[in-house]
């Protein structure tokens, strides 16, 4: 995306930010996709902590095609009636995956031993229009989902149309207003629980920080702020409030990207502290350690894993 920045980008990197710099409004950069609006905050604050053992082996057959085998053993949570108790059932499964990466076509498929297929397709129909499809198909009736997205990328805007099974239609639009600020909105209509919603989002980013805010008619208000302290360290904070169900969560997290390892951790206002360490033991061999302590529910999860290839 760096080559899409306007030529004035180099002037901004100079220490002083002048307020009266001339902004070329006809040559704004293309904004971040709407669903990735808060991607920097998600990297620190929503790291994928897991419980149990995880082993991933990925074998490349050529530049474009690779196979993967993963084994996961550990307790999985089952939703329970009362919010105080958590029911965990120990499970173990093996997942076979095949990936095909092409500049124009990307296919990812993962098949589990219980027959669940997780499929993702991304195809460039033209150089501006992208089709993405995502499906989780299972043998149990009424447990399969599929979603199709058509993304159109304009010069300084992006528009997306979403179609999902059980009559779900959504559309999002995001536009760059200045080189640093982009505003967007979304509309969706769901057939099965008959509801529709509208939401707005804004994102302001500079070299050192990113701030985003989202409001939706489903009741969520979310704001987050990420500050990049240096190349190796970034800190993030997030505040989410649901005005319909009166839930509020605030969290603070960090992300250290070091030479041999990457540590991400966060602490929550729900009394949850979690961390994830990914350490590169040698070329192609990564060791993972994950911990999540939920002091309110007294639920402590620890996991370790190895990723090869």
């Amino acid at each position: 995306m760096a080559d899409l920045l306007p030529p004035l980008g180099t002037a901004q990197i100079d220490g002083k930010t002048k307020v009266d710099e001339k902004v070329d409004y006809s040559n704004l950069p293309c904004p971040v996709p709407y669903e990735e609006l808060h991607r920097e905050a998600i990297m620190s604050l929503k790291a994928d902590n897991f419980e149990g053992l995880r082993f991933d082996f990925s074998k490349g057959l050529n530049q474009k095609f690779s196979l993967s085998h993963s084994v996961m053993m550990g307790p999985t949570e089952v939703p329970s009636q009362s919010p105080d108790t958590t029911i965990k059932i120990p499970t173990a499964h093996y997942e076979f995956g095949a990936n095909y990466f092409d500049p124009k076509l990307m296919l990812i498929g993962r098949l589990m031993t219980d027959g669940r297929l997780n499929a993702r397709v991304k195809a460039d129909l033209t150089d501006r229009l992208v089709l993405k499809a995502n499906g989780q198909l299972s043998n149990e009736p009424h447990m399969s989902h599929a979603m199709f997205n058509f993304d159109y990328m304009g010069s300084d805007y992006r528009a997306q149309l979403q179609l999902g099974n059980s009559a779900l239609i959504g559309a999002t639009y995001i536009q760059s207003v200045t080189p640093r600020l982009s505003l967007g909105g979304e509309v969706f209509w769901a057939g099965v629980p008959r509801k529709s919603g509208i939401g707005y989002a804004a994102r302001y980013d500079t070299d050192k920080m990113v701030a985003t805010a989202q409001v939706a008619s489903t009741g969520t208000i979310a704001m987050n702020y990420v500050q990049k302290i240096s190349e190796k360290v970034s800190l993030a904070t997030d505040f989410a409030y649901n005005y319909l169900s009166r839930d509020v969560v605030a969290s603070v997290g960090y992300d250290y990207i070091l030479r041999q390892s990457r540590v991400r951790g966060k602490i929550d206002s729900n009394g949850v502290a979690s961390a994830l360490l990914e350490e590169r033991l040698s070329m192609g061999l990564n060791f993972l350690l994950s911990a999540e302590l939920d002091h309110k529910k007294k639920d402590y999860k620890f996991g370790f894993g190895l990723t090869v290839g």
Partner: protein
Amino acid sequence: MAAKPSLKNKGRGKGPKGSSSSTSSSSSSKYELVKEWTNWSLKKAKVATQYGFIPLIIIIGMKSDPKPHLFQLLSPV
């Protein structure tokens, strides 16, 4: 409860008179047919995707350049 017997009569009256509303029922049955066909085709598409997606990726991958060998596909190394 005077309304009740009249409702019952209406319910029984519709039986023999069903032939006069055949045009509306055929258009509604066309809609039902379309719905049934789309349901049937979606079910078949779901089964086809579940069985065929991973083999499709493997076939496309084995045809891409440089062509990998079948041995590389099956061996664990």
